[in-house]
């Protein structure tokens, strides 16, 4: 698998570290809702098809990326910096 890092260019997957599901939302840090935290920490969907994931370019620029990848074919349809994507979702406010 080749990942097109927006900073370093196309690189082999061995340079990257998988960092988990990028679709889950971290609950409000002050919340003690155990069900919400449990879902965030443990529950994972395993969709056949498109999925969003965090990858760290650990052997390169050490930036976290958000990758949209098809779980059945491994075809990557989009790659971007996680910081940009997360910041835009949150409108600059951290939870």
């Amino acid at each position, binding site marked *: 698998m080749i990942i097109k890092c927006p900073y370093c260019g196309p690189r082999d997957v061995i340079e990257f570290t998988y960092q988990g599901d990028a679709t889950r939302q971290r609950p409000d840090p002050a919340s003690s809702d155990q069900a919400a935290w449990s879902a965030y920490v443990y529950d994972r969907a395993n969709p056949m098809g498109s999925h969003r994931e*965090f990858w*760290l370019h650990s052997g390169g620029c050490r*930036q976290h990326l958000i990758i949209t990848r098809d779980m059945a074919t*491994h075809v990557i349809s989009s790659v971007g910096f996680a*910081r940009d994507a*997360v910041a835009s979702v949150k409108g600059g406010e951290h939870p």
Partner: protein
Amino acid sequence: MTASRLPKGGRVDRAKTVRFTFDGKAYSGHPGDVLASALLANGITLFGRSFKYHRPRGVFAAGSDEPNALVTVLSGSVREPNVRATELEIYDGLVTASQNRFPSLEHDFMAVNQLAGPIFSAGFYYKTFMGPAIGPLRSTKVWMFFEKFIRRAAGLGKAGVTADPDHYERMNAFCDVLVVGTGPAGLLAAEAAAETGAQVIIAEERPIAGGSLLASVELIDGRNAAVWAREKAAALAALPNVRFLTRTSVWGYYDGNVLTAIEHVSDFKPNRTKGQARQRYWIIRTGKTILATGAFERPIVFPGNDCPGVMLADAVRRYAVEYGVATGNNVTLFTNNDSAYEAARALSQAGVNIVAIVDVRADVSGACIEIASSAGAELVLGHAVTGTHAGKTLSSITVQHFNAQTGHVSGTPREIKTDCLGVSGGWSPAIHLASQAGGKPEWDEDLQAFLPPEPNQNWVTAGSAAGYMDTVSVFSDGATKGSSSKAKPKLPSVDAPMFDASPAAVFQIEPAAKSQKAFVDFQHDVTADDIRLAYREGFHSVEHLKRYTTLGMATDQGKTSNIPGLAIMADARGITIPEAGTTRFRPPFTPVSFGAIAGERYGDLRPHRLTPMHDWHLANSAKTYEAGLWHRPMIYGSHGETVEQAYVREARAVRQSVGIVDVSTLGKIDIQGPDAGIFLDRVYTNMFSTLPVGKARYGLMLREDGIVYDDGTTWRLSETQFLMTTTTANAGNVMQHLEFYLDCIWPDLRVHLTSVTDVWAGTAVSGPKARAVLEACVTGTSVDNTTLPFMGIVYGSIGDVPVMICRLSFSGELAYEVYCGAGFGTQVWEALLEAGKPYDIMPYGLEALGTLRIEKGHVTGAEIDGRTTAHDLHLDWMLSKKKPYIGSAMKDRDGLADENRLSLVGLISLDNQSINGGSHIVSDATPREPADSFGHVTAACYSPALGKYIALALVKHGTSMIGNRAYATDLLRGKHGAVEIVSHHMFDPEGSRMHG
């Protein structure tokens, strides 16, 4: 079967002789021969014994699809097993041996396994060894007893036990177009691709290009087909944008158009150049792949089909045309399609005598009849072979009337004398790589074969791999697939009669009364009856069939057995072959040696991390050990001391006077930015934004799930800069953890992280005389209790080296950590030793460091084991109630507040015996198995401060157990002793010494 070299023909160089041995006997052949053709030319027809039944087996195919003729190549003490004789090029001095026979190929004791045939049927292992679940015959023990005998009886070649002296290379390559295969389709596809200016790699698994053209008697552009192919290949290889690899088998197709190949660089050479690789492992990243991998002929399954002398019709033809070898004096062909007649034409031209052609079809075309007649072969239409007669090799076949529509066998058996039977059951496109690349193969009714799936990456199949079976359409398809233009390509002319490529849908001959086994998978000895048995026992899906019978799971990956096996299962189930489906092919397409994949990567490949003072440690008799990647002093050995004596001496010196230890390995992360304090408040359980500049604080991190993650001190160097230290083992993980939160959870925080572990050298100075030592050597700052209080930081110099000193203690003594630039580590270390001379300062290693912290009850990775909570480790006091932090919500869930959890305690040996790390805590005064464990020892030592053997342990109801007696038991190493459970603060619980 009486094989011999024909008077003429083949591309072997008859002017030269090559000498080699097989099973200790010397033979000769010619350059251009493979082992199979050379042995056949010498009249050898028995090549090996079969996997389970030890039946005599001959050569069956002429390429990578060979299931039977596997040999071991011997070279000095090195042996390479399971090499296909059909691909092994002979060279002077080649030493080969047959496999799976005892004591010899001709006389094999294990052939008695044949008599036990019904026992070794499908699922043999499962049935035989699924014994009673309990009692002396319970299954695993039975299996373990018999396994070594069965493994010896059933198997392939033996692997060598000595180190491989050869070396291997890896190569990364990039191209626009990769063409796999150089038959008529591959050559024209490569030519068309090269003409566009693309960078092209061409890979051919055989020594020379040409594929099917090598055994063709067609004229291409008026020339001999093999010669035409050779010239076309040479012209391609000469192009600057083409890399032409022969003896290169492409064996894996991965995501992102990454393909893997093995090139045989020198293993076919009698004398290898020194330093030359034996094989080269290619990783090819390509824009587009053209799979011109050809097609495999498949057999028809019939009783007695495995005796030497029965082989594929195309193999008979290839030995005659390519190597000038007749595989028999009186050859018979058995077919369900027209390609056998092409073979007959070629054989006849090569001078091979054909007795008869047995065809399951009642009618064949005029061209077929014409070929049979001109070859002088009897045409036996509407018949099938229903049995063979053979000793060690074929002497005659039995044929009977056969209805190709119903599969019904009838009529009186008739015997035909023949010593070689060439079988053709039609052709299957070699879709292995296409199948690996993804997708479901599609069944073609016309070809009675699976065609490649729809591409899901940038690849195409061309030629017979795409289902085109005659040379004219193969040329056309190859040229079209290689080109990017729509223009009609100019094609070579082909002088050959056109045949119908579609076979009759006949895969097996099953006479009502049969006395012989009908084999499907020769290499794993799977019969048609095994498949029917699997059906009756409920293993219907092809995936179950494969695993239950091991059909197609041998080193040939079922190249000849796949379709016949599916056909028999489909027939048993009363469904069609596409309804039965097919399994997905997996890499490797052909066997690959581990050596080639490893390349130069063997031995210890880990980096070795050394501290700046490493050379000093070695020069001063340190015994080191590895802690993760780091090499750290364990003890500084004096002559005649045991490890325990050495660490006790070192630890005692620290408590009594002063010692120094190298702490450069601690993880160090420079954290800068206006939001650094907020960031640390969120990742640590305690407050850091309130920490004054010039002070350090001990911090604790949890994971999101509430379990303790790491600990360490973090120093505030300015309003916007902190230096975080982490445990040595966890440094990389903590860095990644912090990066994740900054990038993915809190991208709004203005914080930057830099790993500075290797930038600083660190030395801890510990003991009652530590301050005196610093006072003697530090300039530019005072180090008294006012200027440098507990957890304070000062800057100064030692000699002319700037240092940063923080007063903190892991040992429980008055202690300081002195940090300087890594390049000055040894200089500062030696200056501290010099300053400490009046106090008999002593360097100490990890064992003493561990002893000091065990005495104090300080935790490390042994207690922060990924299962313990802050409460378990009595670190609740570090959990802030004023703010949320990572893990703050989940640390309170029910399971983590359970009263039955293990918690940290100290242990003191009551019998003055050492306590083994890992011992279980039990209540039994004598060792018992199994015992009810209620805890375990995490670290143990002899404590010079207490004069006792002590340990830290995680024990159920820990705190309320204090004062009780228990036993530390280590059944593995035979140790059992009484201990008293005490507080983990075993020495100086008030901490008066470090605050002094």
